[in-house]
């Protein structure tokens, strides 16, 4: 067992948007240089940061592009990690997280970007793993390099589950999606009691926009 860093865990606020944006971009990269959102939106990294900031500034709940979904791990007054979670389909609009994300993109992305996304439709559809309504979804974990391997993801998961329990919403399972080639993430979730339950694979794809071509769902009963 490695060193454990004693961090404080708290809900994210609008002040944390730059760190949450960094979290989303780094988690999308899964340790590689490839970020699917940059490919999908046909934009630069700075433009992606601007788009994500616009999404996160909206009063949105129930999806991974909502500040309310995130909790922040803080050490010595600075954010060192973040992780998002929400209960699928339980929001004031009764919409799936996929539809909420789609609405955020529709509201903020130029028409030309939305039209260009159709070029990647088959990749997006193939790699998509259904999220079970009523389950606690975990998405976008990131810990800054100097704090990695010190138990922060486990602590964030613990607090995200506790927060969901305290919201008086029933949920029977906790789900997380990860690229199977991201071995360190898979091992971390296995240690936390998650087991492999579903897999999608992109075969022989030209211009792959994702960091890897095999995605799995890992589940923990609750």
């Amino acid at each position, binding site marked *: 067992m490695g060193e454990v860093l004693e961090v404080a865990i708290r809900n994210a606020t609008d002040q944390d948007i730059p760190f949450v944006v960094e979290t989303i971009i780094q988690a999308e990269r899964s340790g590689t240089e490839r970020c699917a959102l940059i490919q999908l939106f046909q934009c630069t990294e700075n433009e992606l940061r601007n788009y994500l900031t616009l999404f996160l500034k909206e009063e949105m709940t129930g999806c991974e592009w909502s500040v309310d979904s995130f909790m922040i791990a803080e050490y010595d007054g600075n954010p060192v990690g973040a992780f998002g979670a929400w209960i699928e389909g339980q929001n004031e609009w009764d919409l799936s997280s996929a*539809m*909420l994300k*789609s*609405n955020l993109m529709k509201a903020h992305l130029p028409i030309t970007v939305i039209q260009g996304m*159709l070029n990647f439709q088959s990749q997006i559809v193939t790699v998509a793993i259904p999220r079970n309504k009523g389950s606690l979804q975990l998405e976008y974990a990131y810990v800054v390099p100097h704090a990695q391997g010190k138990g922060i993801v486990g602590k964030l998961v613990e607090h995200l589950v506790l927060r969901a329990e305290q919201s008086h919403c029933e949920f029977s399972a906790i789900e997380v999606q990860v690229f199977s080639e991201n071995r360190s993430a898979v091992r971390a979730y296995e240690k936390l009691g998650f087991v492999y339950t579903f897999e999608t694979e992109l075969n022989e794809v030209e211009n792959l926009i994702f960091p890897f071509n095999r995605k799995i769902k890992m589940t923990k009963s609750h």
Partner: protein
Amino acid sequence: MGAEEIKNTIAELLFKVLNHRNFEMRDDLTAPDVEGWDSLHHMQILNEIEIHFGFKFKLKDLNKMKDMGSLVAIIQERVMQS
């Protein structure tokens, strides 16, 4: 503009984006009921509606769209405002 006229227009725009007419324009029709109406095509359909009717949906409009009936009601409201 009447609800039936708006529905007929939406049906044509759905055909333009999805390339089929395998749907019935009921008020309780939802995206998962229609083949190909996934989140990517949802954005394309809304683009077409905006271009045709000459307004831009706000995020609060988009989040209220649960079914065909609510989509038609939002379009009617926005057309009246413009």
